[in-house]
């Protein structure tokens, strides 16, 4: 008994004094971060001894370790775990440096050549609404982007003219699938609206160079739009902005798993045109009827099905003095019909796999009638054979379908691998005067792209895209690569390279199939810095064009060109209270030899210097907003290129237009009516004037057949006025969210 007690006591004694027995070796040191700042209260432990302590307020720690090898582990929230093998025969002193845990910092996103405007925007980054509410945009998708660097101020044509490229070199995508016809049918000299409402989108990626391998067939730029997810609440709205009126509803299901919505828009400018004198003499319309519908369904835990359909009908008919015979009038009328459908599905297949599938179908019909009317008001034939187009009709019916599938595998450190394939089917049939036009093309593409983490603050994106067109019977492979390097204080360098192939335009392919893809190689470098609600960006680029389509002397791919320049963007939401402004400057140097150019020329849609400023000031106490925007651009070149027997096409006259300078002003005021209603409607009115200073704009010149008559291409009216009201109603269900989470 006594012996047992003794050993029992001895064991306890030994246990209580074990610390002393093992404490032969001291391990001490300081813990700092990679910037040299001390880290207090960091956990420091030794294994297998099991000793643990915390660093004190000066970052120092003190541990008693075992003899031999053991592992020192240091950890602190926001930093990566530190482990070190220690072999000690005597006391050791170390300086431990903890690296920040990148998962708690923003991931490095590569932004060479692109502007992202999304609802996830932080600080001074752009949101979709920022772009749409710039004064003078009228909520138009394409116009909104002209206040960003890269897009030229082209007042007489629709579409986006990016970095020396034509409007056809930019393509728009909604949830991955191509939106073939963004704007209403072209009307010479009169800019047409975009068909899709910007309110649908939560994210816009405007890439003016070096875009991802997931997209193709656009030599200059891709406008990648992402539609909204389920709305937060059901809502309805209407707006009347003569000549435009529209209304819509968006209904969220009670279980918050699905939603549907419908909007209708009607525009008829006849009354407005009778009040505000327009240059063209409109005999029909302009009239546009448009409707769209959507539904969104959440499937399973992570899946989302989205469907969007848009249908519209338009009619614009105008007469202008004929350029070759001023006593005659040239009539132009275009009637358009179009329907566009987009179905997309996204889901997580597992923790690290995601699938995106999309299908689109659109049908487009453009019926154009040209007529030449003599001084007696009768349709007459022009004198010259070459001018026979002045009396003619053209009807093009276009079917388009696309299927697309993309898989994404996610890895650690924000890395990912994306791969997929898509197929585009396009069938055009129609007639132009007496000749039939037909074109069928099947274009297939397969692509792969990887987001790679190279080091702390250094990320790369590498990809390749293969495309095959049945109409051209040509197969191409395009590389894409970009790199981002984030500096310590919030600045970032980005680099991008890629080759972008594009089919020749359908208008050319109707007549000649023996053509190849044209392509442009992009080289882009930029520096961005975002801090304190300010955003600065400077970007330089070079584009090399090859195999551009030339139509004279024969139709082939012997054209080429280049575009290079510099762009600046600065946005400040902080310096002045309630004032948000941004300034851009674009320098563009470009020449190309294409279509009927006799040699490489600076194209008519490129201005060397462009600057824009957008200012938004809010007065929250009186719920009023004032927006001003100003754009100025140096003159655009114009040419009279005509066929001269024996010499081919040559330039008979050329020049530069006057400087483009337009200031837009908009004023909006919110007010509350029916405030006793449970769902307080938000109402407001807005008035504005585009080109308030009434400066004269000349976009270029048209020449008569013999070159003797030179007519300036000017806007249909000096100023554009608008005034209207809107009202939106919402049913707030956020209280349901709170109750569920208590």
């Amino acid at each position, binding site marked *: 008994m006594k012996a047992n007690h003794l050993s029992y006591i001895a064991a306890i004694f030994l246990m209580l004094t074990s610390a002393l027995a093992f404490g032969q070796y001291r391990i001490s040191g300081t813990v700092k971060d990679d910037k040299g700042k001390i880290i207090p*209260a960091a956990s420091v432990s030794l294994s297998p001894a099991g000793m643990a302590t915390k660093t004190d307020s000066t970052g120092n720690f003190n541990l008693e370790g075992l003899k031999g090898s053991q592992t020192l582990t240091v950890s602190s*929230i*926001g930093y990566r775990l530190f482990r070190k093998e220690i072999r000690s025969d005597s006391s050791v002193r170390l300086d431990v440096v903890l690296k920040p845990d990148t998962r*708690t910092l923003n991931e490095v996103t590569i932004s060479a050549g692109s502007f992202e405007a999304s609802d996830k925007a932080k*600080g001074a980054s752009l949101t979709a*609404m920022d772009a749409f509410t710039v004064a003078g945009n009228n909520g138009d998708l394409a116009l909104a982007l002209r206040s960003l660097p890269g897009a030229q101020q082209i007042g007489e044509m629709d579409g986006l003219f990016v970095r020396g490229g034509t409007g056809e070199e930019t393509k728009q995508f909604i949830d991955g699938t191509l939106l073939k016809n963004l704007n209403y049918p072209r009307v010479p000299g009169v800019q047409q609206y975009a068909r899709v409402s910007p309110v649908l989108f939560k994210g816009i990626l405007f890439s003016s160079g070096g875009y991802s391998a997931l997209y193709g067939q656009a030599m200059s730029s891709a406008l990648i739009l992402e539609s909204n997810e389920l709305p937060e609440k059901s809502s309805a709205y209407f707006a009347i902005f003569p000549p435009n009126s529209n209304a819509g509803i968006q209904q969220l299901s009670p279980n918050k798993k699905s939603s549907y919505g419908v909007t209708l828009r009607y525009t008829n400018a006849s009354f407005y045109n009778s009040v505000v004198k327009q240059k063209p003499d409109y005999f029909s319309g302009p009239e546009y009827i448009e409707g769209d519908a959507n539904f969104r369904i959440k499937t399973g835990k992570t899946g989302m099905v989205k469907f969007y359909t848009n249908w519209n009908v338009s009619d614009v008919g105008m007469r202008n003095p004929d350029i070759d015979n001023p006593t005659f009038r040239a009539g132009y009328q275009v009637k358009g019909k179009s329907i566009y459908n987009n179905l997309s599905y996204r889901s997580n297949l597992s923790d690290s796999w995601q699938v995106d599938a999309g299908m689109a179908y659109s049908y487009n019909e453009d019926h154009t009638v040209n007529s030449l009317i003599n001084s007696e008001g009768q349709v007459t034939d022009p004198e010259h054979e070459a001018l026979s187009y002045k009396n003619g009709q053209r009807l093009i019916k276009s079917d388009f379908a696309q299927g697309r599938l993309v898989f994404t595998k996610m890895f650690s450190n924000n890395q990912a691998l994306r791969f997929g394939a898509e197929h585009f089917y396009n069938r055009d049939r129609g007639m132009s005067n007496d000749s039939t036009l037909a074109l069928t093309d099947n274009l297939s593409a397969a692509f792969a792209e990887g987001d790679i983490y190279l080091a702390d603050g250094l990320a790369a994106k590498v990809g390749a895209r293969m495309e095959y067109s049945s109409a051209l019977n040509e197969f191409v492979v395009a590389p894409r690569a970009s790199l981002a390097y984030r500096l310590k204080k919030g600045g970032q360098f980005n680099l991008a390279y890629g080759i972008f192939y594009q089919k020749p335009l359908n208008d050319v392919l109707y007549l000649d199939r023996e053509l190849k893809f044209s392509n442009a190689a992009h080289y882009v470098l930029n520096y961005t810095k975002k*801090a304190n609600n300010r955003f600065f960006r400077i970007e330089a680029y070079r584009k090399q064009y090859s195999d551009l389509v030339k139509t004279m002397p024969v139709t082939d791919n012997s054209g080429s060109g280049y575009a290079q320049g510099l762009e600046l963007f600065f946005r400040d939401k902080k310096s002045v209270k309630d004032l948000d402004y941004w300034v851009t400057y674009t320098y563009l140097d470009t020449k190309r030899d294409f279509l009927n150019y006799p040699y490489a020329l600076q194209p008519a849609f490129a201005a060397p210097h462009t600057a824009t400023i957008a200012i938004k000031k809010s007065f929250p106490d009186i719920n009023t907003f004032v927006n001003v925007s100003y754009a100025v651009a140096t003159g655009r070149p114009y040419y009279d290129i005509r066929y001269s027997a024996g010499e081919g096409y040559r330039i008979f006259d050329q020049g530069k237009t006057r400087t483009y300078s337009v200031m837009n002003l908009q004023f909006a005021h919110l007010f*509350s009516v029916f405030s006793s209603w449970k769902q307080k409607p938000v109402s407001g009115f807005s008035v504005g004037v585009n080109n308030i200073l009434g400066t004269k704009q000349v976009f270029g010149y048209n020449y008569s057949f013999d070159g003797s008559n030179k007519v300036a291409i000017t806007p249909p009216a000096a100023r554009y006025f608008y005034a209207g009201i809107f009202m939106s109603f919402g049913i707030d269900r956020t209280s349901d969210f709170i109750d569920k989470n208590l």
Partner: protein
Amino acid sequence: MKKLVLSILALVIFHMTVSAQETTAALQSVVTKLDQAKKAKDYEALEKEFLAVAEQQKSWLPYYYAAFCNAKVGFINQDDGESIEPYSIRGEEQVEKAKSMLDTVRQKKELSELFTVLSMVYRTKVFINPMTYGRKYGILSQQYRVKAQELDPENPRALYVQAWELYKTPKMWGGDKEAAKKLSERSLALLQNTKADVNPHWGKAENEELTGKNK
């Protein structure tokens, strides 16, 4: 024999209570430092210290204070929307942890304090980009403040948050600077006799900063 065992047991128990007192003392020392904190840097360092105390002491308070520190950083840096997100994410996580340690039926006053801080954390999410985050998180922020006041109408910190909301909201959406000032004064009055112990007692400096703007 028995005496020896008992004395050893007493030693062990003494050791344990000393440790417990040590950890409450540890929490108290960090809370005292919190009362002196002014800059974002201070709050960032204090968040780490609170988390260190949290690992030893199984209580809601260290996580509550860590979330409060993250909320303060968000408020101080409200003009730099780029940098706020990591703090508000951590703040949200820490409120969740603290809530899991509370008896939500009986500990009404504690839950009220926690919801007040959650309201502030959601407000910091609004600062990231008021235009896009404002609608969702502004409403959440307000709703949690209301819940906090339902649980404890006399909570001076919830009153401060309400005063902040009234002061900063434009008139059309329900703002009222005069009413805000009155609420802030009422909050200060309630804060008069609070002890500076480990339980939440902040609010004086915040109210003074808010009403200082009125002068």
